[in-house]
C-alpha cells in the first residue's frame, strides 16, 4: 500500500490545485497598496555638495564670488580702476568731481 500511496502523492504533486488568475491579480493589487514608499537612493557626491551649500542657487553665488576673487588676485588691485573705468566710462582724464562746491569754498577761504 505504501507504493500505491506514493503514486497518489506523486499525482498530487504533479497536478496541484491551479492558482486562480483572479487571486494572483488581487494579491498583486494588495501588494501595491501595501508597498512601502520607495526608499530614496543615496545621492551622488555632486548632489550632496550642492545640498551642503544650501542648494544650487546658493552655490552659484559662491562660485561667482570665488571667480571674482580669483580675478582680483590675478589682475591686482590696479585692475579695479581699469574695470571701473571701463564700466563707468571714467579715467584719469575724466575724474568725476562729486563735491565741486567744496573746492570753491576752500579757494575762497584761502583768498580771504
Amino acid at each position: 500500500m505504501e507504493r500505491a500511496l506514493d503514486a497518489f502523492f506523486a499525482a498530487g504533486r504533479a497536478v496541484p490545485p491551479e492558482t486562480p488568475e483572479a487571486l494572483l491579480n488581487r494579491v498583486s493589487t494588495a501588494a501595491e497598496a501595501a508597498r512601502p514608499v520607495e526608499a530614496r537612493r543615496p545621492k551622488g557626491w555632486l548632489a550632496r555638495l550642492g545640498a551642503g551649500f544650501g542648494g544650487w542657487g546658493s552655490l552659484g553665488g559662491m562660485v561667482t564670488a570665488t571667480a571674482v576673487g580669483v580675478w582680483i588676485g590675478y589682475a591686482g588691485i590696479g585692475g579695479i580702476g581699469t574695470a571701473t573705468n571701463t564700466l563707468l566710462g571714467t579715467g584719469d582724464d575724466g575724474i568725476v568731481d562729486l563735491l565741486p562746491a567744496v573746492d570753491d569754498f576752500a579757494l575762497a577761504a584761502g583768498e580771504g
Partner: protein
Amino acid sequence: MMAYDAEGHESDEALLAQYAGGDRRAAHVLTERMTPLAYRVAFRMLGDAGEAEDAAQEAMIRLWRAAPDWRDQGAKVSTWLYRVASNLSLDRLRRRRTVALDAVPEPADDRPGAEQGMIAAERARALDRALLQLPERQRQAVMLRHLEGLGNPEIAAIMETGVEAVESLIARGKRGLAEALAGQRAELGYGDE
C-alpha cells in the same frame, strides 16, 4: 498579469527585503512565487476553492504587512507563509459546523479533466478527497510532508510542535489515507500495489 521569473535565483528573503524597500518588481515575483504555495495549502486544508482563495489572499496580505519589520534571523519566508496559510485554514475549519464525513465537500477546482493528464488529475482529486477525511492535524502534516516535500523539522516548526509528534501524525495520517483510498486504487489504475 505580466510574466515574471517566479523561479528566479533570488531568495524569498532577499525579495521580501527589496519589497520592504519599495521595489515593485520584487512584489510581482513574490506574488507569482508565493501565492500558489498559500493557495495549495489552503485548498487542501479546506477543500473549497472559494474559501481557499480568501485564506490565501489573507495570508499574502499579512506577508506584505510583515515585510517592513521582517528581520533576517534565518527564518524562511516560505516556512512563515506555510504556517500562516495553515493557521488561517484551520481557523476557518473551526468556524465551520461539524460536518459528517459523507458531507465533506467535493474539492472543486479547475485542474485538467480531459484526455491527457486526466488520470493524474483524477488521482490527485481522489487524494484531495481522502485528505479531507483525515483529522485536521494529520491532514496538515501529511500534506506538508508528501505534497509540499518539507522535512519533519520544518513541519514541526510550522505546526509548532515536536518532530516526534509530526512523525506520529504522518504515520497515522497515511494509514487513514490508505483506508480511504483502498476502494479507488483499481479504479484509478493502481492495481494491487
